[in-house]
Each structure stands twice: as C-alpha cells, then as structure tokens.
C-alpha cells in the first residue's frame, strides 16, 4: 500500500483558479485535504474525488486528481459505482448539506448503510450557498433565508444522528476553521475501512455567516467544544479542567476538582464500541459540542463481502466465459 513517491500538498493542486468567496471555510477544507493526501501513502492516480452540485461540489476541480463533478445530489451514488467497479481506488465524496441531505438524502443513507469504503466529506454550512441563500435541511428553525423570509419552519436533521440511524460506522465532526484537526481526521477517515462521514461545520461568509461562531470562535471554542479521541478521557476547556461524565442516561459536563470529581471520573472515549448508544449521546450534545471521531466501528465492507461471495461462486462454478455459458 505504501508507495515510494513523497508528495506535498502542492502535488494535489490543480491549475484551476479557486473561485469561492474570499473568507469561505471551503478554502480551509481544500488545503486540509491537500495536506492530508500525502500522508496516506497512496499514488495520486488512485484517488477519485466525486461531487454533486453546490459551492462545496466545486472541490474536485481544485484537486489535481481524477474526479467527477456530477449532478446535484448524486455524488454518493456515482461514487458507489466507482468503488464497486474498482475497489482499488480511494474515493472521496465532497458534498454539501443540500447536495447530500436534501436532494441526495436517499443516496446518502444508502451509502452509509451499505458500508462501502468511501469518505464522505459533508460541508455543512446550513444553507444553500451556490443558489444564493435558501434554507437547507440543516438550517435551524427560525433562520431567515431567501426562501424563509419570516423564518424557517422545518426542523433540521442532526447529521450525526441521521448517519448513525442509517447504521453509520464512522462519524466525525470538525470545525471548518480548524485545518489541523481536519487534516488529521481526513487521514483517519481514509484509513477507516467502510463508509466514513465527516461533517465539517463550514462557515458560509456570505449567506450564513457566524452559524458556528458559538463553537468555532477562537475566544470560546475551547469552552464550548470537546474533542473526543479514542481511548482518551473526554476532557475540554482552555485549562483542560472540564470533562464529560455519564449521569444515568445523560451526558453531563463537569468541572474537574469540583464536587470531588477527579480526572478518573471522566468518560473515556470508545469510538470502536459497536453499540452506538453513547456515540449518539455525544452526537446530540450541544454544549459542549463534540468534535473529533465520535464513532469508528470496523465491519465488513460491501466490496469485501462482494469479493468473498464472488470467490465462492467462482470456486463452485465451471463457467469461465460466455462460451461456457451457452455451451
């Protein structure tokens, strides 16, 4: 799997001018991916980036890889064909909240269910950017947009809940402005065998600026988010003096040192637990919001299962060619 070639992020930059709005988090994502790729030890020509339509879906053009800029909502379905047809490729789906959860919702949940080894990077800006600002399935109730001038009335999806509800085995959440964390997690997502969903809390400066400010603003982010890592206690806070504990069936944020709580009381993250109960609690938490890899459970992928079955059938069958079939 490892290759001789040593890449830098520049090897993954295409000659196309990047055309997102100045200040858009999409730039951060692009650079983070470009930095993650050299760490994967995969020859450049084996990457395929598939997208639908949206600001986010312009992504493949800016990468110097094989790619398909598909039609709106169908990226996961196209990628499914790419990967089933050639499991040797490393497939990334670059998609928006509209692309993957509005028109593409069905392909999204089915991709997740099937557990094909591909990486879905979901740019969740809680808005339709490319079409200039209509609410999306992740927009909040009351949010004013061009199609909800008096406030949005439709309750949003929680991406993590939906993913795990569709039997998702890998789910991570990352701040759109944290390039370092993104790069780490893209590498992990790729390493994971199976469908990985990475939700990026992506700021759209033009149509939904500040949607994640409460969690991503440098001044408060350490207090308002907790990054979980497998095998490590769920500690957060600027002074790393806060943590999560389980109180019955509820997660609670506590201060270490107060009320007799010590570091040992803090929950240790087990991303690999097949039972999603705790992962779902983490996914639902709003304050602190949980970032990092929340769930990562290895199961047989569809293409592994397919390959095995095909081998079995081949072993039993005498048909090797069309001529055998019709003889």
């Amino acid at each position, binding site marked *: 799997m490892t290759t001789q070639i040593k890449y830098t992020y520049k090897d993954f930059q*295409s000659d*196309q001018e990047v055309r997102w709005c100045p200040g858009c988090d999409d730039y951060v994502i692009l650079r983070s991916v470009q930095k993650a790729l050299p760490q994967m030890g995969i*020859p*450049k*020509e*084996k*990457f*395929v*980036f*598939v997208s639908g*339509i949206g600001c986010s879906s312009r992504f*493949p*053009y800016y*990468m*110097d*890889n*094989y*790619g*398909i*800029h*598909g*039609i709106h909502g*169908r990226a996961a*379905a*196209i*990628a*499914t*064909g*790419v*990967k*089933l*047809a*050639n499991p*040797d*490729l490393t497939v990334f789906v670059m998609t928006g909240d509209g692309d993957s959860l509005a028109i593409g919702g*069905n*392909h999204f949940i*089915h991709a997740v269910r099937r557990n094909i080894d591909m990486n879905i990077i979901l740019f969740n800006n809680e808005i339709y950017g490319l079409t200039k600002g209509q609410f999306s399935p992740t927009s909040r109730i009351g949010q004013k947009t061009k199609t909800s001038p008096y406030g949005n009335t439709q309750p949003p999806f929680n991406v993590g809940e939906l993913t795990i509800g569709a039997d998702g085995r890998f789910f991570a959440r990352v701040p759109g402005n944290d390039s370092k964390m993104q790069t780490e997690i893209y590498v992990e997502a790729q390493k994971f065998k199976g469908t990985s969903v990475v939700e990026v809390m992506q700021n759209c400066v033009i149509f939904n600026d500040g949607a994640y400010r409460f969690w991503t603003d440098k001044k408060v982010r350490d207090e308002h988010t907790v990054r979980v890592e497998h095998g490590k206690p769920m500690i957060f806070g600027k002074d790393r003096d806060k943590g999560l504990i389980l109180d019955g069936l509820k997660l609670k944020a506590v201060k270490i040192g107060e009320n007799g709580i010590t570091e040992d009381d803090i929950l240790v993250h087990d991303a690999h637990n097949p039972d999603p109960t705790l992962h779902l609690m983490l996914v639902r938490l709003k304050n602190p919001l949980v970032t990092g890899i929340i769930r990562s459970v290895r199961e047989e992928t569809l293409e592994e299962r*397919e390959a095995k*079955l*095909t081998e079995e*059938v*081949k072993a039993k*069958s005498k*048909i*090797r*060619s*069309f*001529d055998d*079939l*019709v003889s």
Partner: protein
Amino acid sequence: MTTEFKNKSKKPVKRLDHVTIRFAGDSGDGMQFTGTQFTTSAAMLGNDVFTFPNYPSEIRAPQGSLYGVSGFQVQIGAHNVDTPGDKLDLLVAMNPAALKKNLKDLKKGGMIIVDSDAFTKANLLKAKYETNPLEDGSLKDYIVVQVPMTSLTREALKDIPIDSKSKTRSKNMFALGMVYWLYGKDPKYTIEFLRKKFKNKPEIVEANIKALKTGWNYAETLELIPVSYIIDEAPHHAEEYKIITGNTATAWGFLAAAEKAGLQLYLGSYPITPATDILQELSKYRQLDVIAFQAEDEIAGISSAIGASFTGKLAITTTSGPGLALKSEAIGLAVMLEIPLVIVDVQRGGPSTGLPTKTEQADLMQALFGRNGESPVIVVAAKSPADAFKMAFEASKLTLEHMTPVILLTDGYIGNGSEPWPVQRIKDLPEINPPLVKEKIEGWHPYDRDPETLARKWVVPGVPGMEHVIGGLEKDKSTGAISYEPENHEYMVRIRQAKVDKVADFIPPLETEFRDEGDLLVVGWGGTYGSLRSAVNELNEKGYRVGLAHFNYINPLPHGVKDVFSKFDKIVVAELNLGQFANYLRMKHPEFRYEQYNKIQGLPFTTEELVNAFEKLLK
C-alpha cells in the same frame, strides 16, 4: 421418435405448416412451465417457435378467479415463425376462468381441451358463468375435448408415495402429454428435463412422467380426438439454437460484448416490470465477474453506472418507461461527460404506471428527446427476442466506440416472449475497440477527439499523469475545463450532435424486405417486426406489391432512407403508440408523406388486423 411414444393409433395424421396453441389455467397450475416444455421440445425437434406468456398482474390471485388466469401461447411451424400467432388452433383450459378469458382468441372450429373436473359450481361462479359452457351449447362452434384430468391424474398416481396436492398438481403434465400426442411430438426432452430437475425427488419425477404418459395414451385412444397432426421438423436446428426470452437475450448480449471488449460488465439497476428479468439474469454471473448492483432507486442505478463507466467498465442500466423518466437527468450527464453507457428500456403500457405488465412502443419520443437541453443519444431497438442479443451487443459496441450513451429499446412483448436464438460464440462476434487509454499520452486533453468518430478518449483512474476532472457544466472543447464562452458552447452542442449523427457511417444502411419497390412500403421499428413481417408476407402472397422497411437503428437513422422510401407509392408507419416514429420521420424526412397505423391496447399487432389495414391502403 422413441418407440414408446410411437403413435400406434389408426387415426389419420394431418400435415400442418404451423399451429398456435395456448395453455391457460390458474397461476398455480404451472402453465408457463407446461408451455415452455412444449416449446422446447418442438424446437429441439426442429420446428421454429415463438412464444408469448401472459401473466396476471397479481402475484397470486385467488384460485379460479378470472384475473388470476395465466396463459402461455406458442406458435410452432415447419418454417419461419415470426409471432406467437394471432388466433388459436388449440386452447388448453384448466378451469372455467381460463376458458372464459381465452375463448375469444380461438379460431372458429378450433379445439378446446378442458379439465372437466374443474368445472364445478364454485369455479363456474368465480369465472362469472351463469350456466356451464360445457353443457349450454355455447361452445358448439368448437371441437370440445372434455377430459376429467384431475381425477385421471390422481387415479394414475395413486400408488406413488407423494402427497395429494402434488398429485393434483401433476395434471399439467397430463395435459402436456395429450398435446404432445396431438402434434406428434416426442416427450423425451421433457422426461430428461424432469429427471434432471428433480434429481433428488425420484417420486416427483415418477409422478410427472406417469402423468405425462397417461395423458399421451389417453389422447391416443380418445375418440373425441379424431385426428392427429404433424408439423414437419428440420432436426439440423437442434444443436445450434437455444430458446430464450428477449430479456435473457439482452442480458447475454451484454455478457458477450463485455467479454469481446475485454471489459468487466457493470449493471446498476432497480427492479421494474418488465425489465427486472435482465437484472435477475445478470445477478447470476458472479463467476463471469459481472457486477450486478441493485441500487436504492433508478437514479442511483444509472448514477452508479456512470461512476463505473468512469473507471473503465462496460456500464449499463436497465429499466422500463417510468424508470427511464427518472433517469433522464443522469442520461444528460453521461451525454455531457461523453462516456460509454447503455440504458435499456423494456417498454410497457403508459403513461405513468399505466399497464405495467402489457406491451407498448410509446417511449420512443422520451428516449429521443426526454432530457433538458440539446442532449442527443444513440437510440437503437431490438426487433425480436433473439434480436435483443444482437442489439444489446451492438449497443455496447456503439457506446464503447463512440463514447456516448446509447438507449436500447425493447418491450414487454419481446422481453417476455421467446424464440430460438442461434447460439453464438465470442469468436463469431464483431470486434469492439473502445478508445481506452492505459498509459500516459503526452499532450493529451480530455476533450480531444478522434477525427473519424468524434469520440474522445477513455482515460480511467489509475493511469498516472492523466488525472482530470469531468463534469456536467459546459466544457472547453479541448481541455475540458469549465467554459462559459458563447462560441465554445455552440461548438460543443453541435459536435455532440455531429458525433451521434456520424454513427450512421458505422451501421448498416436501411434495407427492405420482400421487394424494394412497389405500391406500399410498410415501415416499423422495434418489437413489431414479427407481426409486420407476417402481414407483409401475407399481402405479397395475396399478390400485392408491398415492401417492409424495419428499423433497428433510430438515432441516427441509417443511410439509405431516402432511396428506399422514394421507390414506393405509399408509406405507412405502423407502431404501438399514437405515431411517434411517424412523427420522427416527418422531422427527419419531411419530403415524404406518411400514413399511420396505430394500436394502443397493451397488446402486439395481430397479423389479421395489419393485413386488413394495409389492404385498405392498397385500394
């Protein structure tokens, strides 16, 4: 004929050229199996055959109900047989409902074999008969052969240790035995088949064979059957033909094309009547490395096929009308990407859900034009069950060599119908040479074109140094980068059209059958070929000067249309819709005047109605 089944009766034997038979009964009566057995035997023995099943749309309707009747029709002939036949010579009716539903298709003077045991009060009621047709004289125009099949079968099998239900169920073999005798056919293939199929259930084999023989013997001795028939056999056919349905033929055509092109076959599909069989058939061939992916819907099916095509597979998607509608946006993407993709539409009755189990040719316009923008695709159509093999292969060749999607139109009639398919081996088939690139080419651009076909090259992930992105936005004519340039757009729209138009240089020119000049040219396309051929044949036999021009290739039209059309006084376009191909010809060849003959009843043409209609035009 094996000695055991030598006709030992003194009854006269009449020689026939062809005969049409329908087996009809409850869905549970095994009529499809019975019909298939008879067909296979006839074909193995050297007759030509053509079948058409007619299932109820319900999965398993209540026993004895009218809407639960399942029928299987076959025409067998000493010579060429192009249709399953119009009117029946023989109707086998296993119950009153089967008789009621099918009687109207029987020829005056034709024969009915019924299981008289099934004509109970309850069954008559379910079939909405007020009086028993076997008794009320309503069948006086036919030869009615009443046989208490159920009891005779049960009696014959009384010593075989199987349950009573299985005994009763064997009555279809009794009926089959009778029909074998009647047409002088040797049941040996059926006996062999039963032995193989129920290898592990010797009692079932015994029961079935016993029932078959009993029926055979019964027919031989029954006075009610005063004569038996013979349809000349040409045994040299036996080895080189397989009887397959159009759907199986389609699936096999793709298998062959993939192997010939040296590619893996990828199918992305979603079940829909009457196209599901193709998906089901291809799901069997993991040993041939076929990937048959059942997706969550039609859009995912085609989208995944687009993804697979991008990686260098022969990618196809199969569906019927409503599914084609759903795929239209994605077909447009494939047009724009200029990648190979075959879309099969097994047409059914529309609009909307329409008549899902019935046949029609009303998706032609959708196939040609059902996409946003100027979005030309190659459109071809299969003309018979066996021809579906050829056209699936041809569709694959065209899409692979011309790098643009192809829509293959078949229909429920030829998809479910069957006829002998001349077995072909890979070596007999034409070469397929896709412009697949496996190594870096210096100076290559994604949208550079082959001057002859205007096809671009097929560069797939994995080739180092050739990384590129393709997408649905308009692209620069060479680099493939997004381009909003007005002139470039016009150029690209026209070149995509030209690429499709150019296919005309690579397909056979239009030919006529029967005669190449005359008073009337019958024009058809797709699955109506058999019916049209029969009708034109009959007209020529009657002394009319009628030609037939049948189209396999629809977009582009083959060369030679003008020449062919101009040699006839009148042109009539006959199709199972309101005139879609006629209208298309008006667009492409406005210089001619087209008469139309149309039928939209969910049924194929009958030869008779065609002959009548065309005769009127000739007067």
